[in-house]
Protein backbone atom coordinates (compact mmCIF):
# COMPACT_ATOMS: atom_id res chain seq x y z
CA UNK A 1 0.00 0.00 0.00
CA UNK A 2 1.22 3.49 -0.90
CA UNK A 3 1.44 5.03 2.56
CA UNK A 4 1.43 8.73 1.67
CA UNK A 5 -2.30 9.42 1.31
CA UNK A 6 -2.50 8.83 5.09
CA UNK A 7 -0.55 12.04 5.67
CA UNK A 8 -3.33 14.05 4.00
CA UNK A 9 -6.39 14.28 6.26
CA UNK A 10 -8.60 15.77 3.54
CA UNK A 11 -8.28 12.67 1.36
CA UNK A 12 -10.03 10.58 3.97
CA UNK A 13 -13.56 11.64 3.18
CA UNK A 14 -16.57 10.72 1.08
CA UNK A 15 -17.99 12.80 -1.74
CA UNK A 16 -21.51 11.87 -2.89
CA UNK A 17 -21.09 8.62 -1.00
CA UNK A 18 -17.78 7.66 -2.67
CA UNK A 19 -14.21 7.83 -1.49
CA UNK A 20 -12.67 11.11 -2.67
CA UNK A 21 -10.34 10.60 -5.63
CA UNK A 22 -8.48 13.89 -5.98
CA UNK A 23 -7.04 14.39 -9.48
CA UNK A 24 -6.64 18.16 -9.59
CA UNK A 25 -3.25 18.80 -8.04
CA UNK A 26 -2.15 20.95 -10.98
CA UNK A 27 -4.71 23.48 -9.70
CA UNK A 28 -3.66 23.13 -6.08
CA UNK A 29 -2.26 20.28 -4.01
CA UNK A 30 -3.64 18.97 -0.75
CA UNK A 31 -1.67 19.69 2.42
CA UNK A 32 0.01 17.12 4.65
CA UNK A 33 -0.65 17.13 8.37
CA UNK A 34 2.82 18.53 9.10
CA UNK A 35 1.99 21.71 7.16
CA UNK A 36 -1.33 22.12 8.96
CA UNK A 37 0.45 21.62 12.26
CA UNK A 38 3.08 24.20 11.34
CA UNK A 39 0.32 26.75 10.70
CA UNK A 40 -1.35 25.94 13.99
CA UNK A 41 1.95 25.98 15.83
CA UNK A 42 2.87 29.35 14.39
CA UNK A 43 -0.29 30.97 15.72
CA UNK A 44 -0.06 29.15 19.03
CA UNK A 45 3.57 29.87 19.82
CA UNK A 46 5.18 32.43 17.49
CA UNK A 47 2.65 34.94 16.24
CA UNK A 48 3.99 38.50 16.14
CA UNK A 49 4.71 40.99 13.39
CA UNK A 50 8.12 40.54 11.82
CA UNK A 51 11.05 42.92 11.30
CA UNK A 52 9.47 45.28 13.85
CA UNK A 53 9.48 44.31 17.47
CA UNK A 54 12.48 44.29 19.75
CA UNK A 55 10.74 41.71 21.89
CA UNK A 56 11.52 38.03 21.79
CA UNK A 57 8.32 36.85 20.12
CA UNK A 58 8.81 39.16 17.16
CA UNK A 59 12.40 38.08 16.91
CA UNK A 60 11.38 34.44 16.82
CA UNK A 61 8.67 35.05 14.22
CA UNK A 62 11.15 36.97 12.09
CA UNK A 63 13.64 34.16 12.39
CA UNK A 64 11.07 31.54 11.34
CA UNK A 65 10.04 33.68 8.37
CA UNK A 66 13.63 34.22 7.30
CA UNK A 67 14.41 30.53 7.77
CA UNK A 68 11.85 29.71 5.11
CA UNK A 69 13.57 32.16 2.79
CA UNK A 70 16.83 30.27 3.31
CA UNK A 71 15.03 26.99 2.86
CA UNK A 72 13.47 28.09 -0.44
CA UNK A 73 16.85 29.34 -1.65
CA UNK A 74 18.39 25.97 -0.93
CA UNK A 75 15.43 24.07 -2.40
CA UNK A 76 15.71 25.79 -5.80
CA UNK A 77 19.48 26.24 -5.80
CA UNK A 78 19.60 30.04 -5.46
CA UNK A 79 23.00 31.41 -4.45
CA UNK A 80 21.70 33.84 -1.84
CA UNK A 81 18.48 34.00 0.24
CA UNK A 82 18.09 37.68 -0.65
CA UNK A 83 17.27 36.52 -4.18
CA UNK A 84 14.02 35.05 -2.84
CA UNK A 85 11.09 37.50 -2.73
CA UNK A 86 7.82 36.39 -1.13
CA UNK A 87 4.63 37.34 -2.97
CA UNK A 88 1.03 36.16 -2.77
CA UNK A 89 1.37 33.68 -5.64
CA UNK A 90 3.12 33.04 -8.95
CA UNK A 91 0.82 35.51 -10.66
CA UNK A 92 1.91 38.33 -8.36
CA UNK A 93 5.56 37.34 -8.81
CA UNK A 94 5.21 37.68 -12.59
CA UNK A 95 3.36 40.98 -12.23
CA UNK A 96 6.11 42.26 -9.95
CA UNK A 97 8.61 41.75 -12.76
CA UNK A 98 6.29 43.28 -15.35
CA UNK A 99 5.69 46.41 -13.26
CA UNK A 100 9.26 46.99 -12.11
CA UNK A 101 11.82 45.41 -14.43
CA UNK A 102 9.38 45.79 -17.33
CA UNK A 103 8.63 49.42 -16.59
CA UNK A 104 12.33 50.23 -16.55
CA UNK A 105 13.60 48.06 -19.39
CA UNK A 106 10.88 47.80 -22.02
CA UNK A 107 10.43 50.66 -24.48
CA UNK A 108 8.36 51.39 -27.53
CA UNK A 109 9.00 48.92 -30.33
CA UNK A 110 10.63 46.33 -28.07
CA UNK A 111 9.60 42.70 -28.33
CA UNK A 112 8.54 40.30 -25.60
CA UNK A 113 8.76 36.67 -26.62
CA UNK A 114 6.17 34.26 -25.19
CA UNK A 115 4.84 30.86 -26.23
CA UNK A 116 1.39 29.70 -27.23
CA UNK A 117 1.21 27.50 -24.13
CA UNK A 118 1.46 30.27 -21.53
CA UNK A 119 -0.96 30.34 -18.62
CA UNK A 120 -2.95 33.60 -18.61
CA UNK A 121 -0.82 34.61 -15.60
CA UNK A 122 2.25 34.64 -17.83
CA UNK A 123 0.48 36.33 -20.71
CA UNK A 124 -1.87 39.05 -19.48
CA UNK A 125 0.80 40.95 -17.43
CA UNK A 126 2.89 41.19 -20.62
CA UNK A 127 -0.09 42.30 -22.67
CA UNK A 128 -0.66 45.10 -20.16
CA UNK A 129 3.02 46.06 -20.21
CA UNK A 130 3.16 45.98 -24.01
CA UNK A 131 0.10 48.22 -24.18
CA UNK A 132 1.61 50.70 -21.71
CA UNK A 133 4.89 50.82 -23.59
CA UNK A 134 3.93 50.28 -27.20
CA UNK A 135 5.92 47.05 -27.26
CA UNK A 136 5.06 43.90 -29.22
CA UNK A 137 4.34 40.34 -28.14
CA UNK A 138 5.60 37.43 -30.20
CA UNK A 139 4.70 33.79 -29.71
CA UNK A 140 6.66 30.59 -30.21
CA UNK A 141 4.08 28.25 -31.77
CA UNK A 142 3.18 24.68 -30.79
CA UNK A 143 3.55 21.45 -32.73
CA UNK A 144 0.57 19.14 -33.21
CA UNK A 145 2.03 16.93 -30.44
CA UNK A 146 1.88 19.80 -27.95
CA UNK A 147 5.56 20.69 -27.69
CA UNK A 148 7.15 24.05 -28.54
CA UNK A 149 7.91 24.29 -32.24
CA UNK A 150 11.55 25.37 -32.10
CA UNK A 151 12.38 24.85 -35.79
CA UNK A 152 12.70 28.56 -36.44
CA UNK A 153 13.83 29.57 -33.01
CA UNK A 154 16.62 31.82 -34.28
CA UNK A 155 14.13 33.89 -36.20
CA UNK A 156 12.26 34.80 -33.01
CA UNK A 157 15.24 36.58 -31.49
CA UNK A 158 15.97 40.04 -32.81
CA UNK A 159 17.94 42.94 -31.33
CA UNK A 160 14.55 44.17 -30.02
CA UNK A 161 13.78 41.01 -28.04
CA UNK A 162 14.20 42.21 -24.46
CA UNK A 163 12.40 39.43 -22.62
CA UNK A 164 11.56 35.76 -23.03
CA UNK A 165 8.81 34.60 -20.65
CA UNK A 166 8.12 30.90 -20.87
CA UNK A 167 6.59 28.19 -18.74
CA UNK A 168 8.84 25.38 -17.52
CA UNK A 169 5.93 22.94 -17.60
CA UNK A 170 2.51 23.42 -19.17
CA UNK A 171 -0.49 23.12 -16.87
CA UNK A 172 -2.79 21.94 -19.66
CA UNK A 173 -0.57 19.87 -21.97
CA UNK A 174 1.82 18.64 -19.30
CA UNK A 175 4.72 19.43 -21.63
CA UNK A 176 8.11 19.95 -20.00
CA UNK A 177 9.94 22.58 -22.02
CA UNK A 178 13.69 22.60 -22.77
CA UNK A 179 14.18 25.76 -20.72
CA UNK A 180 17.92 25.31 -20.35
CA UNK A 181 18.39 25.49 -24.10
CA UNK A 182 15.97 28.43 -24.40
CA UNK A 183 17.77 30.38 -21.68
CA UNK A 184 21.12 29.83 -23.35
CA UNK A 185 19.75 30.96 -26.69
CA UNK A 186 18.12 34.03 -25.14
CA UNK A 187 21.27 35.05 -23.29
CA UNK A 188 23.30 34.86 -26.48
CA UNK A 189 20.91 37.54 -27.70
CA UNK A 190 21.12 39.64 -24.47
CA UNK A 191 17.50 38.71 -23.79
CA UNK A 192 16.39 38.46 -20.14
CA UNK A 193 14.45 35.31 -19.24
CA UNK A 194 11.55 34.76 -16.86
CA UNK A 195 10.54 31.16 -16.22
CA UNK A 196 7.02 30.44 -15.01
CA UNK A 197 7.76 27.56 -12.65
CA UNK A 198 4.28 27.28 -11.11
CA UNK A 199 4.03 23.65 -12.25
CA UNK A 200 7.68 22.68 -12.57
CA UNK A 201 8.81 23.73 -9.08
CA UNK A 202 6.20 21.36 -7.66
CA UNK A 203 7.15 18.33 -9.73
CA UNK A 204 10.77 18.54 -10.89
CA UNK A 205 14.10 19.05 -9.20
CA UNK A 206 14.97 22.66 -9.95
CA UNK A 207 18.26 24.46 -9.80
CA UNK A 208 17.84 28.07 -10.85
CA UNK A 209 21.58 28.78 -10.77
CA UNK A 210 22.41 25.89 -13.08
CA UNK A 211 19.51 26.83 -15.33
CA UNK A 212 20.87 30.37 -15.27
CA UNK A 213 17.31 31.76 -15.23
CA UNK A 214 17.06 35.51 -14.57
CA UNK A 215 13.65 35.17 -12.92
CA UNK A 216 11.80 32.09 -11.72
CA UNK A 217 8.22 32.35 -10.35
CA UNK A 218 6.12 29.80 -8.48
CA UNK A 219 3.38 29.25 -5.86
CA UNK A 220 3.58 27.40 -2.55
CA UNK A 221 0.03 26.07 -2.79
CA UNK A 222 0.90 23.87 -5.77
CA UNK A 223 3.64 22.12 -3.77
CA UNK A 224 1.97 21.14 -0.49
CA UNK A 225 2.24 24.65 1.00
CA UNK A 226 -0.50 27.02 2.14
CA UNK A 227 -2.36 29.34 -0.21
CA UNK A 228 -1.34 32.99 -0.30
CA UNK A 229 2.42 32.43 -0.63
CA UNK A 230 4.31 32.84 -3.88
CA UNK A 231 7.98 33.14 -4.70
CA UNK A 232 9.89 35.28 -7.11
CA UNK A 233 13.49 34.25 -7.56
CA UNK A 234 15.60 36.86 -9.33
CA UNK A 235 19.33 37.23 -9.88
CA UNK A 236 20.67 39.61 -7.28
CA UNK A 237 22.18 42.13 -9.67
CA UNK A 238 18.93 42.32 -11.64
CA UNK A 239 16.74 42.68 -8.55
CA UNK A 240 19.01 45.38 -7.17
CA UNK A 241 18.64 47.37 -10.34
CA UNK A 242 14.84 47.24 -10.27
CA UNK A 243 12.62 49.97 -8.80
CA UNK A 244 10.30 48.85 -5.97
CA UNK A 245 6.88 47.35 -6.70
CA UNK A 246 4.44 48.17 -3.90
CA UNK A 247 5.22 51.01 -1.52
CA UNK A 248 4.55 51.00 2.22
CA UNK A 249 5.81 49.70 5.51
CA UNK A 250 8.66 47.16 5.73
CA UNK A 251 10.23 48.16 2.44
CA UNK A 252 11.49 51.62 3.40
CA UNK A 253 14.71 52.78 4.99
CA UNK A 254 14.05 56.51 5.52
CA UNK A 255 10.88 58.40 4.79
CA UNK A 256 10.61 62.14 4.17
CA UNK A 257 7.66 64.22 3.05
CA UNK A 258 8.33 63.93 -0.63
CA UNK A 259 10.61 60.93 -0.98
CA UNK A 260 11.81 57.77 0.67
CA UNK A 261 14.71 55.40 0.37
CA UNK A 262 14.42 51.63 0.12
CA UNK A 263 15.74 48.81 2.17
CA UNK A 264 18.08 46.45 0.42
CA UNK A 265 16.93 43.10 -0.97
CA UNK A 266 14.71 41.30 -0.27
CA UNK A 267 12.65 43.72 1.87
CA UNK A 268 12.59 46.30 -0.93
CA UNK A 269 9.97 44.12 -2.64
CA UNK A 270 7.97 43.07 0.41
CA UNK A 271 5.77 46.01 1.41
CA UNK A 272 3.33 45.59 4.27
CA UNK A 273 2.76 42.64 6.59
CA UNK A 274 3.24 39.47 4.55
CA UNK A 275 1.56 36.09 4.97
CA UNK A 276 3.87 35.21 7.85
CA UNK A 277 2.07 32.06 8.96
CA UNK A 278 1.88 30.79 5.37
CA UNK A 279 5.55 31.46 4.72
CA UNK A 280 6.58 29.76 7.96
CA UNK A 281 4.45 26.68 7.20
CA UNK A 282 5.79 26.54 3.63
CA UNK A 283 9.08 25.37 5.10
CA UNK A 284 7.33 22.27 6.46
CA UNK A 285 6.04 21.56 2.94
CA UNK A 286 9.55 21.81 1.52
CA UNK A 287 10.86 19.45 4.18
CA UNK A 288 8.12 16.98 3.30
CA UNK A 289 9.13 17.16 -0.37
CA UNK A 290 12.82 16.76 0.52
CA UNK A 291 12.06 13.68 2.57
CA UNK A 292 10.02 12.24 -0.25
CA UNK A 293 12.72 13.23 -2.75
CA UNK A 294 12.05 15.23 -5.91
CA UNK A 295 13.60 12.48 -8.05
CA UNK A 296 11.31 9.92 -6.42
CA UNK A 297 8.38 12.23 -7.03
CA UNK A 298 9.22 12.52 -10.71
CA UNK A 299 9.63 8.75 -10.95
CA UNK A 300 6.31 8.14 -9.21
CA UNK A 301 4.51 10.57 -11.50
CA UNK A 302 6.14 9.11 -14.60
CA UNK A 303 4.88 5.64 -13.68
CA UNK A 304 1.39 6.92 -12.92
CA UNK A 305 1.22 9.01 -16.07
CA UNK A 306 2.49 6.16 -18.24
CA UNK A 307 -0.10 3.86 -16.72
CA UNK A 308 -2.88 6.45 -17.11
CA UNK A 309 -1.99 7.21 -20.74
CA UNK A 310 -2.08 3.48 -21.52
CA UNK A 311 -5.44 2.94 -19.86
CA UNK A 312 -7.00 6.09 -21.33
CA UNK A 313 -5.96 4.98 -24.81
CA UNK A 314 -8.05 1.84 -24.33
CA UNK A 315 -11.19 3.99 -24.36
CA UNK A 316 -12.63 4.53 -27.81
CA UNK A 317 -13.31 8.18 -28.58
CA UNK A 318 -10.85 9.48 -26.02
CA UNK A 319 -8.53 12.21 -27.32
CA UNK A 320 -5.37 13.00 -25.36
CA UNK A 321 -3.62 16.37 -25.66
CA UNK A 322 0.12 16.89 -25.25
CA UNK A 323 3.16 14.68 -25.85
CA UNK A 324 2.91 10.90 -25.45
CA UNK A 325 6.63 10.66 -24.71
CA UNK A 326 6.74 10.38 -20.94
CA UNK A 327 10.16 12.04 -20.69
CA UNK A 328 8.56 15.23 -22.08
CA UNK A 329 5.44 15.18 -19.91
CA UNK A 330 4.71 15.79 -16.26
CA UNK A 331 1.79 14.29 -14.36
CA UNK A 332 -0.92 16.18 -16.21
CA UNK A 333 -3.29 14.71 -18.80
CA UNK A 334 -5.85 16.81 -20.67
CA UNK A 335 -8.41 14.93 -22.71
CA UNK A 336 -11.83 14.96 -24.28
CA UNK A 337 -14.11 11.93 -24.38
CA UNK A 338 -16.51 11.24 -27.24
CA UNK A 339 -18.87 14.18 -27.62
CA UNK A 340 -19.47 14.47 -23.90
CA UNK A 341 -18.73 18.06 -22.94
CA UNK A 342 -15.96 18.26 -20.30
CA UNK A 343 -18.32 19.96 -17.87
CA UNK A 344 -20.87 17.24 -18.11
CA UNK A 345 -18.07 14.74 -17.65
CA UNK A 346 -16.83 16.66 -14.62
CA UNK A 347 -20.26 16.63 -12.99
CA UNK A 348 -20.82 12.92 -13.59
CA UNK A 349 -17.33 12.07 -12.29
CA UNK A 350 -17.90 14.28 -9.24
CA UNK A 351 -20.90 12.15 -8.42
CA UNK A 352 -18.53 9.21 -8.22
CA UNK A 353 -16.22 11.13 -5.88
CA UNK A 354 -13.68 11.94 -8.62
CA UNK A 355 -12.37 15.52 -8.72
CA UNK A 356 -10.93 16.57 -12.09
CA UNK A 357 -10.59 20.00 -13.64
CA UNK A 358 -12.70 20.96 -16.65
CA UNK A 359 -12.63 24.08 -18.77
CA UNK A 360 -9.90 26.04 -20.49
CA UNK A 361 -7.40 25.81 -17.57
CA UNK A 362 -6.41 29.49 -18.00
CA UNK A 363 -4.98 28.44 -21.36
CA UNK A 364 -7.29 29.86 -23.99
CA UNK A 365 -4.47 30.06 -26.52
CA UNK A 366 -3.88 26.32 -26.17
CA UNK A 367 -7.60 25.58 -26.51
CA UNK A 368 -7.75 27.62 -29.70
CA UNK A 369 -4.59 25.99 -31.07
CA UNK A 370 -6.15 22.54 -30.80
CA UNK A 371 -9.63 23.77 -31.71
CA UNK A 372 -11.50 22.80 -28.55
CA UNK A 373 -13.41 25.09 -26.20
CA UNK A 374 -12.61 23.05 -23.11
CA UNK A 375 -10.96 19.83 -21.99
CA UNK A 376 -11.07 17.57 -18.97
CA UNK A 377 -7.81 17.34 -17.03
CA UNK A 378 -6.52 14.79 -14.56
CA UNK A 379 -3.32 15.63 -12.69
CA UNK A 380 -1.32 13.64 -10.17
CA UNK A 381 0.82 14.17 -7.11
CA UNK A 382 2.66 12.06 -4.61
CA UNK A 383 -0.52 10.85 -2.89
CA UNK A 384 -2.10 9.45 -6.07
CA UNK A 385 -1.96 5.77 -6.95
CA UNK A 386 -2.73 3.44 -9.86
CA UNK A 387 -5.95 2.67 -8.07
CA UNK A 388 -6.97 6.32 -8.55
CA UNK A 389 -6.33 5.89 -12.29
CA UNK A 390 -8.49 2.75 -12.33
CA UNK A 391 -11.26 4.64 -10.56
CA UNK A 392 -11.03 7.39 -13.17
CA UNK A 393 -11.24 4.90 -16.06
CA UNK A 394 -14.22 3.19 -14.51
CA UNK A 395 -15.79 6.59 -13.90
CA UNK A 396 -15.38 7.52 -17.55
CA UNK A 397 -16.97 4.25 -18.66
CA UNK A 398 -19.91 4.90 -16.37
CA UNK A 399 -20.24 8.43 -17.70
CA UNK A 400 -20.40 7.09 -21.25
CA UNK A 401 -23.09 4.58 -20.30
CA UNK A 402 -24.98 7.32 -18.49
CA UNK A 403 -25.14 9.64 -21.50
CA UNK A 404 -25.83 6.74 -23.91
CA UNK A 405 -29.03 6.20 -21.97
CA UNK A 406 -30.05 9.72 -22.98
CA UNK A 407 -29.59 9.17 -26.70
CA UNK A 408 -31.45 5.86 -26.79
CA UNK A 409 -34.53 6.93 -24.90
CA UNK A 410 -34.49 10.51 -26.05
CA UNK A 411 -34.76 9.54 -29.74
Amino acid sequence: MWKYPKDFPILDQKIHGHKLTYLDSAATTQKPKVVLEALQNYYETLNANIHRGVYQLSEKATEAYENTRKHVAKFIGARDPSEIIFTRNATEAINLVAYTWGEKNISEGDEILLTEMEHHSNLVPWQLLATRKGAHLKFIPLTDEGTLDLKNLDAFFTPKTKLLAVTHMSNSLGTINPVSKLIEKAHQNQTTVLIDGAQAAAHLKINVSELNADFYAFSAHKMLGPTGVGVLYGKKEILEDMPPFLGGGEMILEVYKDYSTWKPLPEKFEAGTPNIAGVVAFSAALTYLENFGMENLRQHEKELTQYALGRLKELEGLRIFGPMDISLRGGVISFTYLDIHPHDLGTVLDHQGIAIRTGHHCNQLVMRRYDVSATARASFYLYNTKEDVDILIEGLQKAKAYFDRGSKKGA
Partner: protein
Amino acid sequence: MAWEALNDLYREVILDHYKNPRHHEKIEPHDVEQEGFNPLCGDQLTLQLKINSGKIENVGCWGKGCSISQASASILTECIYGKALEEVLSEASFFKEVMQGKSKIEEKDVGDLEALSGVQKFPVRIKCALLAWTTLEEALRFYEKTHVSSLK
Protein backbone atom coordinates in the same frame (compact mmCIF):
# COMPACT_ATOMS: atom_id res chain seq x y z
CA MET B 1 -27.81 7.33 -4.69
CA ALA B 2 -25.68 9.69 -6.67
CA TRP B 3 -27.14 8.69 -10.03
CA GLU B 4 -30.64 9.68 -8.97
CA ALA B 5 -29.42 13.16 -8.11
CA LEU B 6 -27.79 13.31 -11.53
CA ASN B 7 -31.02 12.32 -13.23
CA ASP B 8 -32.53 15.43 -11.79
CA LEU B 9 -29.92 17.49 -13.64
CA TYR B 10 -29.81 15.54 -16.87
CA ARG B 11 -33.51 15.08 -17.53
CA GLU B 12 -34.34 13.51 -20.84
CA VAL B 13 -35.93 16.71 -22.10
CA ILE B 14 -32.58 18.42 -21.56
CA LEU B 15 -30.55 15.79 -23.35
CA ASP B 16 -33.04 15.94 -26.20
CA HIS B 17 -32.67 19.73 -26.54
CA TYR B 18 -28.88 19.31 -26.34
CA LYS B 19 -28.82 16.73 -29.12
CA ASN B 20 -31.51 18.34 -31.27
CA PRO B 21 -31.31 22.06 -30.59
CA ARG B 22 -34.29 24.12 -31.79
CA HIS B 23 -33.94 27.31 -33.90
CA HIS B 24 -30.31 26.37 -34.35
CA GLU B 25 -29.67 28.63 -37.34
CA LYS B 26 -28.72 32.09 -38.49
CA ILE B 27 -31.71 34.22 -39.33
CA GLU B 28 -31.88 36.99 -41.94
CA PRO B 29 -32.91 39.67 -41.45
CA HIS B 30 -32.44 40.20 -37.73
CA ASP B 31 -32.51 43.29 -35.50
CA VAL B 32 -30.09 42.22 -32.78
CA GLU B 33 -27.18 39.82 -32.57
CA GLN B 34 -25.74 39.23 -29.13
CA GLU B 35 -22.89 37.02 -28.02
CA GLY B 36 -22.69 35.51 -24.56
CA PHE B 37 -19.68 33.98 -22.79
CA ASN B 38 -19.14 32.08 -19.63
CA PRO B 39 -15.43 32.62 -18.96
CA LEU B 40 -15.31 29.90 -16.30
CA CYS B 41 -16.33 27.12 -18.69
CA GLY B 42 -15.65 28.57 -22.11
CA ASP B 43 -19.37 28.20 -22.92
CA GLN B 44 -20.29 30.50 -25.73
CA LEU B 45 -23.40 31.30 -27.72
CA THR B 46 -24.81 33.72 -30.27
CA LEU B 47 -28.42 34.84 -30.19
CA GLN B 48 -30.20 36.60 -33.04
CA LEU B 49 -33.62 38.21 -32.74
CA LYS B 50 -36.05 39.59 -35.28
CA ILE B 51 -38.45 41.90 -33.49
CA ASN B 52 -41.67 43.26 -34.93
CA SER B 53 -44.37 45.36 -33.21
CA GLY B 54 -42.90 44.58 -29.81
CA LYS B 55 -42.86 40.84 -30.42
CA ILE B 56 -40.14 38.26 -31.07
CA GLU B 57 -40.95 37.39 -34.64
CA ASN B 58 -38.02 35.07 -35.16
CA VAL B 59 -35.05 33.79 -33.22
CA GLY B 60 -31.83 31.93 -34.01
CA CYS B 61 -29.28 30.61 -31.54
CA TRP B 62 -26.11 28.51 -31.73
CA GLY B 63 -22.92 28.04 -29.78
CA LYS B 64 -20.54 25.71 -28.02
CA GLY B 65 -20.71 24.43 -24.51
CA CYS B 66 -22.01 21.89 -22.07
CA SER B 67 -25.38 20.19 -22.31
CA ILE B 68 -26.94 22.50 -19.73
CA SER B 69 -25.91 25.75 -21.42
CA GLN B 70 -26.87 24.57 -24.90
CA ALA B 71 -30.13 22.91 -23.86
CA SER B 72 -31.09 26.04 -21.95
CA ALA B 73 -30.47 28.09 -25.11
CA SER B 74 -32.63 25.76 -27.17
CA ILE B 75 -35.43 25.85 -24.61
CA LEU B 76 -35.17 29.64 -24.53
CA THR B 77 -35.77 29.91 -28.26
CA GLU B 78 -38.99 27.92 -27.90
CA CYS B 79 -40.06 29.92 -24.87
CA ILE B 80 -39.71 33.32 -26.49
CA TYR B 81 -40.75 32.61 -30.06
CA GLY B 82 -43.73 34.80 -31.01
CA LYS B 83 -44.02 36.38 -27.57
CA ALA B 84 -44.24 40.06 -26.57
CA LEU B 85 -41.02 41.58 -25.24
CA GLU B 86 -42.45 42.32 -21.80
CA GLU B 87 -43.55 38.74 -21.44
CA VAL B 88 -40.13 37.53 -22.52
CA LEU B 89 -38.39 39.77 -19.99
CA SER B 90 -40.64 38.66 -17.17
CA GLU B 91 -39.98 35.02 -18.11
CA ALA B 92 -36.23 35.73 -17.95
CA SER B 93 -36.46 37.28 -14.51
CA PHE B 94 -38.72 34.49 -13.30
CA PHE B 95 -36.21 31.87 -14.44
CA LYS B 96 -33.41 33.75 -12.70
CA GLU B 97 -35.42 33.79 -9.49
CA VAL B 98 -35.99 30.07 -9.80
CA MET B 99 -32.25 29.50 -10.16
CA GLN B 100 -31.58 31.69 -7.13
CA GLY B 101 -34.15 29.72 -5.15
CA LYS B 102 -36.41 32.75 -4.77
CA SER B 103 -39.30 31.32 -6.79
CA LYS B 104 -40.59 27.84 -7.48
CA ILE B 105 -40.87 26.65 -11.05
CA GLU B 106 -44.38 25.30 -10.37
CA GLU B 107 -45.65 28.86 -9.91
CA LYS B 108 -45.90 29.26 -13.67
CA ASP B 109 -46.51 27.10 -16.69
CA VAL B 110 -43.21 27.36 -18.52
CA GLY B 111 -43.17 24.31 -20.80
CA ASP B 112 -39.82 22.56 -21.26
CA LEU B 113 -38.14 25.19 -19.08
CA GLU B 114 -39.48 23.24 -16.14
CA ALA B 115 -36.87 20.57 -16.87
CA LEU B 116 -34.09 23.00 -15.97
CA SER B 117 -35.33 23.49 -12.42
CA GLY B 118 -33.14 20.57 -11.25
CA VAL B 119 -30.02 22.63 -12.04
CA GLN B 120 -30.73 24.65 -8.92
CA LYS B 121 -29.30 21.83 -6.83
CA PHE B 122 -25.98 22.06 -8.70
CA PRO B 123 -24.69 25.53 -7.81
CA VAL B 124 -21.67 25.41 -10.14
CA ARG B 125 -23.92 24.67 -13.10
CA ILE B 126 -26.43 27.51 -12.54
CA LYS B 127 -24.28 29.87 -14.60
CA CYS B 128 -24.50 27.40 -17.49
CA ALA B 129 -28.30 27.40 -17.32
CA LEU B 130 -28.48 31.19 -17.09
CA LEU B 131 -26.09 32.04 -19.93
CA ALA B 132 -28.76 32.09 -22.65
CA TRP B 133 -31.09 34.13 -20.47
CA THR B 134 -28.56 36.79 -19.53
CA THR B 135 -27.56 36.96 -23.19
CA LEU B 136 -31.21 37.52 -24.06
CA GLU B 137 -31.49 40.32 -21.53
CA GLU B 138 -28.40 41.98 -22.95
CA ALA B 139 -29.79 41.65 -26.46
CA LEU B 140 -33.02 43.32 -25.40
CA ARG B 141 -31.18 46.08 -23.54
CA PHE B 142 -29.25 46.79 -26.70
CA TYR B 143 -32.46 46.73 -28.71
CA GLU B 144 -34.09 49.11 -26.27
CA LYS B 145 -31.22 51.57 -26.65
CA THR B 146 -31.39 51.52 -30.40
CA HIS B 147 -35.18 51.28 -30.82
CA VAL B 148 -36.49 53.15 -27.77
CA SER B 149 -40.09 53.51 -28.87
CA SER B 150 -40.82 49.82 -29.43
CA LEU B 151 -40.22 48.84 -25.84
CA LYS B 152 -42.04 50.69 -23.15
